[in-house]
């Protein structure tokens, strides 16, 4: 789960990390009230879950009332990489001399969190990481002990942070690690940290993503989640609790287990079709969940045919078959042709239950995918 900048900044500020004065606004009037309080220069920043907001025109600096109004009108309601901007953060501009990068994330190849600090802040840190990785100082953290203060000092000195603010940045880093651990964050980043002309350090941006698997122990954070789906179908998938990704093709794909569903997508492509979606019903799915999955895929008007690919382990074929029947028996006419392939746990029981007047049945993965691709070609003609 991603937090918005304004949400992450509230959490940072509470933990003692200095952030610029700011107000949240969702209308031009609210922006104008906010800049009156905060003064100029003011940054107007779109609150949407996309990277590179600045480059895409989602962040503007206003030097006076006219510019603030213009920025508010431009940004509120704009489409930013598929997301509509409904809220902006109006923030006091910071007079800065240097921009730094600090971040903590999980290094999966080491199985440990890693802290990163660089003096090359304020630009695309991914580019820095790729082109001049030596410009980012890194230190792995033993999750049993946390980030030792000496490690925080070591990394800021290694990164070449100016000496007069090095200890402030080190203490920033320690606070960030505490937040990372306490909130089950998957990433926590500030880019840039600004060093002001008075040599104060200020978090000018804030990124905080939470491990979805840990949300059960962070009700406060879960409650902060704001709908940020690219379209209605993804919102619906969120309600049903599916792993779902909408794609641009016309063959709807439902399966169990991420690896097998991805393989089904790849095979649709291999046999000359084009996948409309990735939909994983997950392990141990019961009949209702299976019916919801079909409802999902039928709701996508781009879908011309559906392939249902189940290899049961913890999932049982008879439950899946029941769900398919339940979903399809509601229709007088099946909206799109459905090909089913059932294998594994209780597959035979499933095949006996399955209403074969409503679906086509194939015994192998390859045949099922090929038939679904052919169905899609026929329907779309």
């Amino acid at each position: 789960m991603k937090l918005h900048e304004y949400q992450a900044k509230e959490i940072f500020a509470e933990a003692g990390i200095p952030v610029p004065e700011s107000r949240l606004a969702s209308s031009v009037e609210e922006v104008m009230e906010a800049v009156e309080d905060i003064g100029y220069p003011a940054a107007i920043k779109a609150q949407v879950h996309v990277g590179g907001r600045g480059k895409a025109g989602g962040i503007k600096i206003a030097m006076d009332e006219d510019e603030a109004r213009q920025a508010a009108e431009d940004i509120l309601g704009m489409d930013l990489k598929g997301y509509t901007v409904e809220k902006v953060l109006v923030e006091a501009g910071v007079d800065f001399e240097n921009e730094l990068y600090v971040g903590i994330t999980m290094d999966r190849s080491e199985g440990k969190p890693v802290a990163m600090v660089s003096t090359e802040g304020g630009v695309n840190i991914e580019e820095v990481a790729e082109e001049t990785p030596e410009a980012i100082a890194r230190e792995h953290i033993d999750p049993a002990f946390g980030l030792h203060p000496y490690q925080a000092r070591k990394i800021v000195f290694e990164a070449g942070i100016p000496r007069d603010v090095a200890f402030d940045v080190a203490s920033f880093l320690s606070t960030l690690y505490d937040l990372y651990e306490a909130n089950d964050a998957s990433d926590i980043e500030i880019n840039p940290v600004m060093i002001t002309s008075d040599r104060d350090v200020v978090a000018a941006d804030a990124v905080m993503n939470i491990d979805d698997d840990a949300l059960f122990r962070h009700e406060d954070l879960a409650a902060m989640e704001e709908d940020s789906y690219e379209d209605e179908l993804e919102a619906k998938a969120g309600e049903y609790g599916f792993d779902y990704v909408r794609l641009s093709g016309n063959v709807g794909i439902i399966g169990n287990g991420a690896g097998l569903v991805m393989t089904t997508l790849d095979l649709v492509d291999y046999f000359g079709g084009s996948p409309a979606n990735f939909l994983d019903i997950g392990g141990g799915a019961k009949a209702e969940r299976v019916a919801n999955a079909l409802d999902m895929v039928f709701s996508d008007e781009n879908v011309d045919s559906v392939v249902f690919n189940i290899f049961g382990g913890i999932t049982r074929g008879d439950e899946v078959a029941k769900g398919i029947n339940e979903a399809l028996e509601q229709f007088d006419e099946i909206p799109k042709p459905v090909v089913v392939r059932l294998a594994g746990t209780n597959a035979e029981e499933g095949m006996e239950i399955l209403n074969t007047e409503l679906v086509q049945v194939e015994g192998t993965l390859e045949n099922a995918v090929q038939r679904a691709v052919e169905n899609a070609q026929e329907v779309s003609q």
Partner: protein
Amino acid sequence: MSIFVDDDTRVVVQGITGGEGKFHTQQMMEYGTNVVAGAVPGKGGQEVEGVPVYDTVAEAVEEEDANASVVFVPPAFAGDAIFEALDTDLDLVVAITEGVPTQDMAKVNKRLSEVDTRLIGPNCPGIITPGEAKLGILPGNIFEEGNVGLVSRSGTLTYQVVSNLTERGIGQTTAIGIGGDPIIGTSFVDALEAFENDPDTHAVVMCGEIGGEDEEQAAKFIAENMDTPVAGFIAGRTAPPGKRMGHAGAIVSGSGTGTAESKISALNDAGVPVGDTPEEVADHIEDFL
């Protein structure tokens, strides 16, 4: 022969009184696995499927001489359950649970470096040595005894590829689902090393997917250390960058690392043929044998 589990493996099931724990205990026993105990805090003294339940894993080890555990404990308590298992000096812990918080696994990972126990998973289907034992949720009937090893990050993809092999009469020494989470106990390299050292394993299938760099590391290991031939499969060729495809690990970053292409070319460079379909993987294995 086989790797990690065999006839002598004596299993304690953590979470045996839950729905999945109970069902799969029965399935494992039907397959012939020696399930000797269950462990559920507060449920000591009960019996499930004729198996005695203890309050702690330590008691199960002491009373029933268990040397392996299978974890069917819900995600909120799974990290703790794995820690408990690691404190009893078992040879093997197989964690089936999906959705264990990553920071819990980082702590488990640290503990793993201090003990001699092997962890498989979490978020995995388990491990099976056909004809001897299965620890986990894999459907036993699709496997057959033979001389091909299989290691996979995805459960259902394991089943798919195994069924392609079995249908041609190609059996397996051991099949392992290592799980798709960012932090896991047993890696591709660990499994490949064990298969390389198993004289009865004559060929290996490795099923990977987009995300992370584990397959690239495995390719390097194969090139430098393996004589046993390996065939590969990589899921997620059509996955768009930046989208999470189910598994926590199955996400392609924008910068081109972790893509299906980079994994396939790393494997090809290591002399590993990668099939376009599961059928093609079976073709390659047939050629090796």
